[in-house]
């Protein structure tokens, strides 16, 4: 087991290294740099600048050095946990990310929970009652849910539940104008969380449902299910004690594969609902060509994805005793 973990960790090293190269190359290929970006009229910080002062500014950011040297400097910092300072705010990128991370994690984890708790039971029920009305309806729904752009379903939800029925707030993270007690404050923040998390969870829900349905159908026909039935067990026992456990194990892997999409989707959803997560930071960085910030967020989110995929792989090994990676 520990040898398997060590091997998987070692395999992640070239991937992580490759990501630093890809991100750095992308930034290098870009026309213009942070200093020229300051002159874009509507976001310009400094209106009048001559060539000499621009060179001086480049030197102060270390932009005058050749690319490989800047890459090595950056990589050296990254390895020590230092992602550099934002060109715009001059605060350490790590600090900015850590400040924004909790909101994004809260949103993505809630969305994942919504898609798992709705998707898996629906998939199991529709498999058990194959060809029922519910099955047809739910199968159609998965097709639609996968085709719906997340921002469109987000706006539909906002239109219905926030603007017309007035049940939930439209924007933001919490009501800032009033001071609630502890419990009411929790409830207040929960209300703000529901719409964005549902919108973000819809595609995942559809794919978990689709997956668990087909996995259940496959396992219901396997020999061990037939054996259980011929022992005289009731069908409910066969389904829920025997088949369910085996059929749902691979859902762990599907969850791992779903994570990058979930994190990317959060970027879109956060901008719609004004959610104070990494998206605002990222989009602002993109607009101002804040290289250290963009590189930092790209790197950080990828490391997060690589590590959580690793975790789901390990969880699978722990849960399924048939798998031995020695």
């Amino acid at each position: 087991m520990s040898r398997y973990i060590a091997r998987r960790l070692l395999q992640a090293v070239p991937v992580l290294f490759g990501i630093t190269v890809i991100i750095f190359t992308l930034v290098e290929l870009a026309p213009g740099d942070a200093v020229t970006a300051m002159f874009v009229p509507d976001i310009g910080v400094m209106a009048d600048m001559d060539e000499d002062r621009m060179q001086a500014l480049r030197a102060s950011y270390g932009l005058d050095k050749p690319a490989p040297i800047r890459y090595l400097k950056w990589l050296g910092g990254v390895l020590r946990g230092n992602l550099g300072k934002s060109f715009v705010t001059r605060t350490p990128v790590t600090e900015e990310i850590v400040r924004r991370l909790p909101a994004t994690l809260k949103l993505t984890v809630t969305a994942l929970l919504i898609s798992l708790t709705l998707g898996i039971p629906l998939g199991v029920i529709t498999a058990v009652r194959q060809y029922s009305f519910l099955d047809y309806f739910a199968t159609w729904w998965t097709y639609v849910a996968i085709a719906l752009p997340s921002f469109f379903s987000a706006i539909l939800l906002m239109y219905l539940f926030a603007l017309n029925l007035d049940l939930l707030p439209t924007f933001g993270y919490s009501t800032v104008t009033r001071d609630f007690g502890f419990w009411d404050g929790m409830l207040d923040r929960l209300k703000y969380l529901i719409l964005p998390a549902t919108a973000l969870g819809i595609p995942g829900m559809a794919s978990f449902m689709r997956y668990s349905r087909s996995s259940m159908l496959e396992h219901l026909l396997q020999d061990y299910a037939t054996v259980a039935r011929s022992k005289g067990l009731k069908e409910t026992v066969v389904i829920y004690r025997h088949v369910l456990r085996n059929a749902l194990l691979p859902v762990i892997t599907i969850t791992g594969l779903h994570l990058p999409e979930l994190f990317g989707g959060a970027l879109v959803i956060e901008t719609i609902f004004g959610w104070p997560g990494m998206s605002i930071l990222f989009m602002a960085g993109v607009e101002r060509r804040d290289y250290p910030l963009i590189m930092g967020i790209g790197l950080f989110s990828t490391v997060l994805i690589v590590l959580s995929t690793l975790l789901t792989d390990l969880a699978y090994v722990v849960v399924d005793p048939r798998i031995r990676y020695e």
Partner: protein
Amino acid sequence: MASDENSAAESIMVEEIAGSTHKGRIVRRFMRNRAAVAGAAFMLVVVPLVFPLAKVVAPQDPHATNLREIGQPPSADHLLGTDLTGRDMWSRVVYGGRVSLAVGLVAVVIYMSIGIVLGSLAGFYGGMVDSIIMRVTETVMSIPGYVMLITIVAFIGPGLFNSMLAIGLLGWTGIARLVRGQVLSVRAQDYVMAARATGVPAKGIILRHVLPNTMAPIIVAASFGVAGAILLEAGLSFLGLGVRIPVPSWGQMINEARSPAIIQDYLWLWVPPGLAITLCVLSINFIGDGLRDALDPRLIRD
């Protein structure tokens, strides 16, 4: 009983010998899938409508503002109403389809080419070539799609071609892995061995013998890929990083209608483009499902 079965089997065989070619069987299996046929029919209407016939079905200029007709609800003059600068929404949806569908198609052509080349090189040569290409593939795969997409577009600049390129640079990993797997299994077949033995060069073997035999799953992946690329382009335009105003794309149009006041009172500004994206993606996915079932030789039930 037994003789019944025999005669049934015989009649099937006779039918196969008499009329059905391989292509005919594929077409028949596709036609049996009602959702796939509906999807194909829908796209066969939409594609001519937004490309060559746009001027005919939407005679009004999608860019012409008219301050006397601002934010009008759907009417006989303006089938889908007008936006807040008086532009005709029906024309905008029709012309927006050009951008959305074109980006989807071209992006997939770009990433299919990258994926097929890298995948077949990795599968055919194996060894070092294979492990380098596959490590690069894994690396690109683990970067969250939108993060990479936004980064690429932010640096090469927004625009029609750049959206296509960015989605193309992102999407090839799945195809590369698929093609590699297919090539690995085909490479071991006797006919490839025979071609090698007769001295056919590697390029010839890949192009003539290996790739044609891996086409079926590639076509299926491409059709799902178009749907995915349309969704990605829509997301990118929605974030304001896609095609620049005034060329409307469906995602861009929803982006322009994002404020709560518009969402609540001007439904015709955001529902039609949203539905257009959803229906196109749905249809293309149905076509993909139909193709997968029709092309999979293991599912032959004729």
